[in-house]
């Protein structure tokens, strides 16, 4: 396949940049997803089928897992794609991507995700942000920080009573994490969606 880049337009991103983009991500599933996304966005040259078609399929499967709809089949598929890409890709870029995936797959996290656990609290579909009512001082800083207008609540005014704690509207929350550093009292927690439902 040769939907290739023209010679004169050298790729702006290379494999180093792809690797750098996942440096600060801890969750293996998130790391894999970001890695493959970045890989597909530029360094993937498209000169051979296993890598061009395989990494796209791998991304489809990783996204399923990170969104909580993944199954054991998806993990097996990613494993197969990575194994075969390592064997049959034309160049080092495909092989490096395969190696990266194989390395991440070794971690238990993939399996954990099937049950809704993202230990690193990075897979947004598996987690929720919640305000701990007991700690909330009704200062309203989190509401100011939220760009998505996802936080409900009334700022406290002196000498008035009957306030309820601030609350995050889950439907509006995109899990950007901006509210976390905004709260001086540590009143916002990130928990697995699964445990939240149980609670």
């Amino acid at each position, binding site marked *: *396949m040769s*939907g290739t880049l023209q010679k004169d337009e050298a790729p702006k991103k290379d494999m180093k940049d792809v690797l750098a983009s996942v440096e600060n991500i801890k969750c293996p599933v998130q790391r894999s997803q970001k890695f493959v996304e970045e890989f597909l966005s530029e360094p993937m040259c498209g000169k051979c*089928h296993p890598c061009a078609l395989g990494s*796209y399929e791998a991304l489809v499967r990783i996204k399923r897992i990170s969104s909580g709809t993944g199954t054991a089949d998806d993990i097996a598929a990613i494993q197969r794609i990575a194994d075969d890409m390592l064997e049959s890709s*034309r160049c080092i870029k495909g092989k490096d991507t395969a190696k990266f995936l194989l390395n991440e797959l070794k971690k238990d996290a993939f399996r954990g995700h099937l049950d809704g656990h993202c230990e690193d609290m990075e897979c947004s579909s598996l987690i929720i942000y919640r305000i701990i009512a007991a700690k909330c001082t009704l200062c309203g800083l989190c509401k100011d920080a939220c760009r998505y207008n996802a936080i409900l609540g009334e700022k406290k005014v002196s000498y008035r009573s009957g306030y309820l704690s601030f609350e995050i509207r889950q439907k509006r929350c995109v899990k950007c994490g901006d509210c976390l550093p905004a709260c001086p009292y540590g009143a916002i927690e990130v928990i697995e969606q699964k445990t939240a439902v149980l609670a």
Partner: protein
Amino acid sequence: MANMVNLKIDGKDVKVQEGTNLIDAAETAGVHIPNLCYMKGMKGIGACRLCLVEVEGSKAPLIACNTKVKEGMNVTTSTDRVVEIRKFVTDLIVSMHPLDCMTCTKAGTCNLQKYAYDFEIKESSFSRKKFGYSPDESNPFIKRDPEYCVLCSRCVRICKAQDTNVLEFSGRGVGAKVETGNQKPLQESGCTFCGSCIDVCPVNALLESDRWRKGREWEYEKTDTVCLSCGSGCSISVSTKDGSVVKINSGAPDGSIERTICAVGRFGFDSLIGDLRITSPMKRVGTELQETTWEDAVGIVAEKLKAAGTDAAIVSNGAILNEDAALLAKMAEALNTKNVSSTVSLYSGADAMKSGGADLEAADFIVLVGIEPSQWKRVLPALDASVRKRLNNGAKLIVINSGDLQISSKAAAALKGDEAKMLMELAQAVISKGTKAPKEMIEALAHLNPSDDAVAAAEVFMAASAPVILAAPSLYKAAANLSLIKGEAVAVPLEANARGVVAMGLGSKGFSETVSARSKVLYAVGELPVSSRPDTGFLIVQASHMTDLAAQADIVLPSAAALESEGTIIDWLGRIKKVNRVCVPAGDAKQNGDIFMAVAGAMGASLKPAKEADIKKAVKTKSKTSFASFTKEEGLDADPAAFMQEINKATVNGSRLLWLKELESCQVTA
């Protein structure tokens, strides 16, 4: 001869030429190595990875398409490891391919279907991908449906190899798509509709536009024959169903550079049926042509010819078969008339049509002398494509022409000016470097001081090991002088059986003089570049289609079209090619030779068909190349493009090619 290499493939001993790749080598041992993107004769690109094989001593599997054989190599083509990779890639491709094999036209020849079957992929284990691309169905020749594309890039590469450069990739990976360069329909993208892309497409992404519900590959009967539309005389493979032609593909061996045909050869078969076709003999009654019987028509023709005797004139085109031409010559002999001629005399002398052959496949250097094969102008399009394929494979080109040619941009040197003079300068430049040449030539050129261009061209010529000089017949003798120094020279005629017709004795006299000789009876055979009735007492036209000339005839005899005839031709490289009957002649039409025998019979002369040995003998008589003066033969300047148009008029006007012709005329005026 290249060195032979011994190796083992799947335990079988294989002996092949040095430089062969593993796919081709395995084929000789009857082992098929799966592949989607490999094209025989072109460099392997290793995109599909299906051809990965294991070679002893190599840790990683190697791509068979681009791995050359080595002495003592031990290759295993189907280990678990590589079979898994093949399954994996096929699985991925199936995940983005429509699963409609039950109605797909390419079912049975589709490579993806074959591999899915071989690897037991009933449906893909990967997620289904749908693109929603719309097909390009805006022309009557080629349908492109990107939904089916497996991104093998064969079509893109074959189009580039022929320098037509219409198809290109856009995007990468799963989102890649084959498009025209300007993303417009084919007819607005400089496409010549040669259909080479159809021949190479492994799936249903490219196919003939009219194939829907016209049967599938296993229902077709395939016949190898030759296209007689122009001087290239291409091998074609014709598929018929229930006696009628469904499609035509290139018939040259896989991997040969001659594996190209053009739109006329591929799509002109519509003209076998249709309004323009003559299906019964006709005679002029008053001002009208009326149908009559063979008996009546042949009787009249015989009577008129006999009465005219030596005053009868016979003309033919250069596309009638050897056997037919031989019978026509004998008929002329029986009439004792010397007024026999063929259209070959419009562009070639007799000697040029006996030139030696050449190996185009191995040519590393090509000289075009006074000819302009062009896919776009539809002059010897297949030859143009072959030459360009060679050039793109590293061969060098020198163009010697008085005009500016499109192909000159690809030439190592272009000598513009009077061709004979340029040839002299080139020869002198070569000789002045101390190369051996016949004495007469050295003497004849001694006074000449070659131009810088000629000196540069001479350097390329000397570096070449297998030069092939392709010359216009009028310049053949002059160009052949070069071949006395090195290489082969061939005269390139405009008609498929020009050499055969001359060899059978029909080329000697001027065609124009014979036509305008005020003969008592003129017997015109085949489609001729004559549109108004010549000054003759009685005009007999024997043709497959109602040409302008036939419409003005006194008697019209329906002849079989090329695809309905059987015999041989001698192609421009001097090879005998078998022409096989693909379908029965339309209506009452008969093959030329049968008509000649019937006419001669009615005149009381019995003609015997030519023997195979006679034709073989005729091929062997080749003119000896000896030094001739560097001059252009006079009177052979038929304009190739106009001539081609004239002789293919009925094919074009009677088929979907008319659409293209009209489109092109619109574009010129627009």
